[in-house]
């Protein structure tokens, strides 16, 4: 009877303070957190009523965290654009400027980094690779991966953790 929007709205109203505090910690800015929490509300208003949400509070935290990740993505893209622009610009200025990392080097660095990621992941046990690929690249939820591979949810979590830990250790 309660549709997704009502359930989410109820959880939102109840947890608005919690969410604001959490994202203030994450974003290190109360104003940015307010913005993000307001954004969460606007997303709730756009949720299809037919969607079933049984874990509304978790959904809201996840929604906010995804909005944060989107922001990180946006920043990375604009940083990349700035970088490119600066490099091109530098070439125009001429030889006075010492180009410490021109675009060609960037491309090489990106290739090397990709190779490193592939190497790290492919050294992992096969099942770990499979879980990682299904969750990260094919967009299956933990429950779906668990079901598809006939393993427990906590096993899925453990595999994901292994990948993350290894990547964090080995990449700089």
């Amino acid at each position, binding site marked *: 009877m*309660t549709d997704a929007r009502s359930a989410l709205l109820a959880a939102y109203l109840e947890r*608005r303070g919690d969410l604001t*505090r959490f994202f203030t910690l994450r974003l290190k800015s109360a104003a940015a957190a307010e913005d993000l929490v307001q954004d969460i509300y606007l997303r709730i208003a756009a949720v299809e009523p037919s969607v079933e949400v049984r874990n509304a509070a978790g959904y809201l935290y996840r929604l906010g965290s995804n909005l944060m990740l989107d922001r990180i993505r946006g920043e990375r893209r604009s940083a990349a654009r700035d970088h490119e622009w600066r490099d091109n610009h530098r070439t125009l200025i001429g030889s006075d400027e010492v180009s410490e990392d021109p675009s060609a080097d960037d491309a090489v660095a990106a290739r090397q980094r*990709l190779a490193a990621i592939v190497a790290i992941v492919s050294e992992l046990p096969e099942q770990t690779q499979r879980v990682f690929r299904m969750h990260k690249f094919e967009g299956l939820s933990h*429950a779906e991966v668990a079901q*598809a591979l006939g393993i427990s949810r906590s096993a899925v979590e453990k595999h994901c953790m292994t990948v993350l830990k290894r990547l964090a250790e080995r990449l700089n």
Partner: protein
Amino acid sequence: MTGRRDEDGPMEVAQQAAHWFARLLDDAATGDDWLDFETWLAAAPSHQAAYARLEGLWVELDEVADAVAAALDAPVSLDARRAARARPTLSPPAPPRSTLSRRAWLAAGAGLAASVAVGAFTIANWPNSPVETYVTAAGQTRQLTLADGSKVWLNAASRLDVRFQRGARRVQMADGEAVFDVTHDPSRPFLIDTGDREVRVVGTEFNIRQRADAFALSVRRGLVEVRPSGAPDATPTRVPAGQGLSHRKGSAQAVIAAAEPEAAFAWTRGQLVYSAAPMNQVAADLSRSLGTPVQVADAATGRLRFSGVLALDDKDALLRRLEAFAPVRAERGPGGVVLHRR
């Protein structure tokens, strides 16, 4: 899981961060999981740094997803993926939450409730009891327990006239807003007359708002019957839980639609919830709830639409939030606040 935070070395912190990250990737992670995560995160700056690092990596993986996926094995069957995608978001059941919690009533209303006579004995002896009038000023809300045990939470700038008779419990509310949690009593229906519509209840919980010409009802629990005021023989419209009814004075038709009871009840938590509401309605609500006149500078400002949640905690913070989320500027003057379109 959080470990001995002070003594954890970088390796342990990285391990914990990876654990939390993996845990929260699961859409089954509950609100409590997130609160636990917050506790861990707040424990040390190194925790935040380690977690942010993983987030950065996670995003980076998206950018190289195709290349990494191609370099690894062939993808898992497409059918499995489609089957998974076809289903909407799934998550485990959350424990059912009570709606307007009894605790809230008890906690907030204790003082008032204690001063009001309660009990069947009293009611039985009031064949035609006198009218009790309850009024709230702008900026003030009030929780009441009526003689039959029904609870009323009166919003700001509202007036309620209550009269209990042998065969009916009658309430008049010509200008106001209130949440009613009505005690079940089939022998004495609870009747609320707003001058425009009459609402008949047996036992249920709902919000009614009558402001100027606009009547709005949202039902959270139970079933409510609505008739035009002064027409006791008119066929009632029955409004079940999760639905609402709105009517404009003079109009031949009432509109029944799925309601957001949570939004309608939000004022009882000190929040105002709007979905594309015209700014002049927002201003009118704020005037009543803040106890300070809030006006729009002109008709165009009044027509601006606003979506968002305003917490009624602190007036200045509220106006700042409104300015941040709507294209308006709030000008504070001696006569109150005027909203200007930016």
